[in-house]
């Protein structure tokens, strides 16, 4: 009898402990939530666009290698003009390194989900990321690979650009229709790294005198480099073929790709090629 009581009691204690342990694992931390990070090439990449010099550009693949994607909670606002490291009260590493295809999906595709992590609740109003050269995957050896087609006046030029300049962007709060990064306890929020490829080629739907066009390279300089109806070039090739002024302009435009919605970022560009 005594043994039976002891046995039943032990079972009861074990069972209760087991249930308590499981329940604690299932109940989420009330001070945390799920923070998502997305990469967005906008409609320019998903649907294609017309460059400032009339070339219709559509992307088959647009790989960007993202690293050290970090979100910050800062007390005021980040000044992208001045730059510097955000003075954050909370920091969360969202993505150590990952290559994503901004052209994934069809014209109606949502911005690419890069990662989702559990993070402390609060306002994440600053974001930074790097674009180093990838060590593996579809963009191995490069920070950005574009596989696309340009068409104008019946002429079609398939082209591939492989960029090995390493970029870094530090940005403030997302600027768009909605607010992002406001993470409630037990809830969900998202952040977005936006890429403005119209800065590189211009926008044929904007006036020629618009700043988006006056500063863009367009596609014509690249079209002139095509051989046998196609173009395959990496950064080294572009530097050799483009004029020094055009290549410097190209590098400057690479630095302007990163945004948070319409919000600007502080950018930097590094080149690790031999002879640079």
């Amino acid at each position, binding site marked *: 009898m005594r043994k039976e009581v002891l046995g039943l009691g032990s079972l009861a204690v074990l069972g209760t402990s087991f249930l308590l342990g499981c329940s604690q694992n299932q109940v989420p931390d009330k001070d945390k939530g799920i923070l998502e990070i997305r990469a967005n090439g906008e409609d320019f990449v998903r649907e294609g666009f017309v460059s400032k010099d009339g070339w219709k550009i559509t992307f088959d693949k647009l790989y960007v290698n993202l690293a050290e994607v970090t979100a910050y909670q800062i007390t*005021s606002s980040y000044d992208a003009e001045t730059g510097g490291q955000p003075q954050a009260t909370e920091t969360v590493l969202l993505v150590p390194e990952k290559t994503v295809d901004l052209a994934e999906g069809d014209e109606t595709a949502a911005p690419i989900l890069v990662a989702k992590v559990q993070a402390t609740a609060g306002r994440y109003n600053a974001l930074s990321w790097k674009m180093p050269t990838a060590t593996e995957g579809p963009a191995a050896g490069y920070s950005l690979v574009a596989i696309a087609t340009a068409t104008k006046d019946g002429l079609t030029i398939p082209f591939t650009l492989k960029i090995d300049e390493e970029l870094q962007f530090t940005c403030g709060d997302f600027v*768009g229709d909605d607010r992002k990064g406001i993470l409630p306890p037990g809830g969900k929020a998202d952040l977005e790294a936006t890429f403005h490829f119209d800065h590189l080629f211009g926008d044929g739907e904007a006036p020629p005198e618009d700043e988006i066009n006056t500063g863009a390279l367009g596609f014509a300089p690249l079209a002139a480099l095509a051989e046998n109806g196609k173009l395959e070039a990496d950064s080294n090739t572009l530097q050799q073929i483009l004029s020094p002024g055009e290549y410097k302009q190209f590098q400057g435009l690479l630095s302007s790709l990163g945004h948070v919605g319409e919000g600007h970022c502080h950018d930097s560009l590094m080149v690790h090629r031999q002879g640079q």
Partner: protein
Amino acid sequence: MNGKLILTLMFICLGGWQERAIAHGANIEYKTAPAIEIQATYDSGTPMANAQVVVYAPDDPNNPWQKGTTDEKGNFRFIPDESKSGYWEVKVRQAGHGGIVTIAVDSLNATGNQQSASQSKLGNQQTTEANTILARASNDNKMPQKLVAIASVVWGFIGTALFFYRLKNYHQNTDKPARQL
């Protein structure tokens, strides 16, 4: 004596009512209130004229507190709620460009001077402070109602005085001690 009492009561009520009649004239009040003015420009220095503006209050960064547009010079002005101290945010957007500026509002004292702790840039944006005078005016000219009200009060005092007069005469005529009220 009773007639004098009646006249005295009428004088008092008319005099008091006259003071209230003066209060129904035009009344203009004002107070100074601190305003925040932003100026939004593109990197080229061109003003962001007629750009979309959204203001967010410190206690609700998710929902717009006020919406508007900049003027031809890229300026926009608003008066923050004095009861909401903290970081006010102003978002300006136009033609695919935009930015957010955070303005710290610690407290607003009685004279309307704003104590701001920090400011940030939106392109070449500048944040300035200005004092704004708000004026309110009231005017009540409903004369017929006033006359009826005056007449009613006067008649009330007359009636009360006549009641006590009659009561006094009654007790005098019956030689009975006045009833203690």
